[in-house]
Structures are given as C-alpha cells and as structure tokens.
C-alpha cells in the first residue's frame, strides 16, 4: 500500500512537469500573429499556485525551479529572476495554506491575486533598478488580469479531472498509516 502511494506521488509530480511542459509547448507553437495587444494567461503560474495550495507535495521546490527556469530560458526572459520570484511566491502561499484550507474559494483567490501582483511588481522593480528594459506595463497588467481570470478554471480542472483536492480532515492520518 505504501509503495503504491509512493509511486502515485511520483506520478503526480511528473504530471506537474508534463503539464508545465505542455503549457510551454503551446506557447511556443508558431500560431499567433506575432504582434498581439493582449497577453495570454500565464497558466504555469496558475497551475503552480493551485497545486501548492492543495497538495504541496505534488509540486516540490526543485520541480518548480526547473520548470520556471526552463521557461525563462525559452521565453527570452531574464533567466532566473521570474523563477526565483515564483518560488518565493509559491512558498509564501504554501505557508498560508493551512489558514486558507478552511476558508472559501474567494479568499483563496484573493490571496493568490495579492501574491501574483506582488511578484509582478517585484519583477518590474528589479528590472527597473538594474536598467533592463521591462515589458510594456499594459501587457503586464493584462497578463495579471487574464491569469487571475483563468485561475478558477485551472482550479476546477485540477479538482475534477486530475483530482488534486485539498486534504480533508482525517485523510492525513489515513495516508500516514497506509
């Protein structure tokens, strides 16, 4: 039984990586007209935050780091900065997760929103301080908004299709003993 749950855990972790890879793949497809006036939601962030708040053990630190560092390299962002901020943001959320567990979804959404806005502002501040040309402000804003709009959908898909749910009281002990 314990062995089965261990393989299940690792398969969920790899599922996280595969989903991140899928998102990057879709972004890289040469489909969109090159100039766009709106930014598609950053689904990787929504996925990471949703999973970290539900089952942090499915999205371990090293996997988040790897996925976002690769994304930084592939999407021509300054490498490392966005990944570091996402890592900090996700772990802040993870620390808050026990308090959020009992609250309703809008509260969770609110805390995800504050975290996302905080790391976006932090990202732009660092770029500003180090004199690196930052992406246009309007696009950043639109991306934050679309990501937040997509977050409930990501959560819904995670819960219904992938069965990544918050641990119900009592389930922890069942997992421990099994």
């Amino acid at each position: 039984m314990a062995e089965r749950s261990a393989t299940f855990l690792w398969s969920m972790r790899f599922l996280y990586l595969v989903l991140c890879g899928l998102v990057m793949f879709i972004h890289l497809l040469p489909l969109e007209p090159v100039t766009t006036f709106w930014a598609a939601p950053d689904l990787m962030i929504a996925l990471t935050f949703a999973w970290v708040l539900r089952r942090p053990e499915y999205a371990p630190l090293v996997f988040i780091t790897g996925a976002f560092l690769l994304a930084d390299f592939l999407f021509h962002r300054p490498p490392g900065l966005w990944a570091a901020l996402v890592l900090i943001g996700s772990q802040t959320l993870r620390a808050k997760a026990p308090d959020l567990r009992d609250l309703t979804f809008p509260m969770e959404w609110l805390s995800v929103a504050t975290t996302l806005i905080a790391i976006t502002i932090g990202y732009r501040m660092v770029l500003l301080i180090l004199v690196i040309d930052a992406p246009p402000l309007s696009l950043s804003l639109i991306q934050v908004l679309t990501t937040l709009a997509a977050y409930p959908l990501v959560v819904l898909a995670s819960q219904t299709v992938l069965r990544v749910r918050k641990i119900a009281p009592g389930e922890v002990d069942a997992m421990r003993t099994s």
Partner: protein
Amino acid sequence: MARDRAQDNDYFGQLRKLLLAVLVLCLLAIFLVWRIDSPRVERFRAQVIDTVVPNFDWAMAPVTGAVNILRDFQSYQRIYQQNQELRRELQQMKSWREAALQLEQENARLLDLNNVQLDPRLTYVTGVVLADSGSPFRQSVLINVGARDGIVDGWATMDGLGLVGRISGVGENSARVVLLTDSSSGIPVTVQPSGHQALVAGDNSGSPLLTFLEDDDGVRPGDRVMTSGDGGVFPAGLLVGRVTQDPGGRLRVRLSADYERLEFLRVLRNWAQERIEDPGSLVEPDTPATEELSESADPLEEDEIGPEPADG
C-alpha cells in the same frame, strides 16, 4: 505519536526552508551573472533552446497544421466573398503585372547600358520558422538553420517580400530572429524618393516607428522605406515597407513582409563589408611614416622623392 509527527514536520520544514533559500540564491546568482556577462549566458540560452525546441518539432508540425486547417475551414464559410475579392484583386494585379514587365524590361536595358554587376556574394539560406518567442513581450521567431549552416549573428532576414529582422543568437541547429517590431530593434533606413535618412524603431506594435528623421516635410505616407546600409549592419537597398501615419500624427512603417504568416525566411549571407576608415594617403599623407622615412633614408632618396610633386 502526535509529538513525533510534529518533530518530523519541524525537521522537514527546516530542511525545506534551507532548500528554498539555496534555490532562490542559485536563481538570483544566474540572474546576476546574466546581467553582468550577458553574451555568455545568451549563448547558453541558445544552446538550451537548441536542445529543447527541436525535440518538440515532431509534435509542433502536426498541431500547427491541424489548427491551421481548422482556421482555413472557418474561412470556407465566406468563400463566395473571398472569391469575389480575389477576382477583383486579380484584375488589379494583371494591370500591375503589365507595368512590372515593362519596368523589368526597362531595368534590364538600363543595367545592360551601365554594365552593372550586382553583388554576387549576396546569396541566402532559407529556413523554416520553428517557434515564436512564446511571450507577447518579445517579438522574435526561431528558425531551423543555425551555426551548422553557417549562420552568423547580425545577418539580415527577409521573407519573399521584405525585411523581417536580424539574427540574434545562433545555436548549432537553430537561430533566433529578432523582428523589426521588437522594442529593442532599430535599423537605419532611407526613405525613397526623398532620400531622407531615418531609423525604424520597433515598439511592440504591428508597424514600427520612423524616428530620427531629419525633417518630416519631405516624407509622405506611401513613400518606400529601404535599408540604407549605414553602420554596416545590413546590406543597402532591402525593402522594408511603406510610410504610414498613425492617428497621433507620428510616422510609422507598414512592413512589406507578411508578419501574420512567417513560415519560410531567407537569411542573407552578408560577409563583413569593407570599410573605409582612414582618409587615405592621397588626401592626407601618412605623416609619421614620412618622418621615419626622411630620418632613415639617405639624402639621395630624399632627392628622388622631392621632385615628384613638381611633376604632378
């Protein structure tokens, strides 16, 4: 039991905090290294893309194809309208073709008259677009030719019609093309027929700005914009687009290249052009050399040099 678990959690919690700190420091170190020594990290980035993206290629082609088929299917719905439009355009094109043929003959005659030789070294390599930049903040595409095919940083890239961008970042099998619309792109151009010099600077919108124009008066919407070849970045005379005016009154360039449909790109081979840097000995004699000559040479040689200007 409960105390045991609490300790357990505490231990793992500490460990995780340590790991988090280490990872964040590593990432920030990568970022700082990139900030300090950008070219090296960019080369590394090119290598990463070079290994990752071609692996996606087998999946990218069918997915892109399928989506494009779907889009085409949508366009079947207005097939009648399109047919009408195409007929009208064909009519116009026929008259243009007639004009072009006449001009071509005239051009051939004139070239023959002048015995002009176009630069034979301006050949090209054709590549297929593998991926776009993946983010709306960067206007670039990845093509499937790289250092293996002799691509060099800085070469100009065109589609069949006009300039698309320049090579920036070369991997073994792939290269990144920064488009003219990217906000970091700026190329020197000439506006025809007035001959004004200007700079086409991208601003992440579909048509880049025409800046650093000496005076706006001679330039009208509809004028042709060609590369000027200043600075040795691009060969001169490549078509960029036509001048337009945006609602704010600023001059922009409507690009000739079809940016909605970038599929095959031509990379122009552009070996380092010869540059004239010194004024040349005819205009201004090389003074230190002549001094040396007069010091070391015997009087007889000086006599030989002396009368020469009198001859001329």
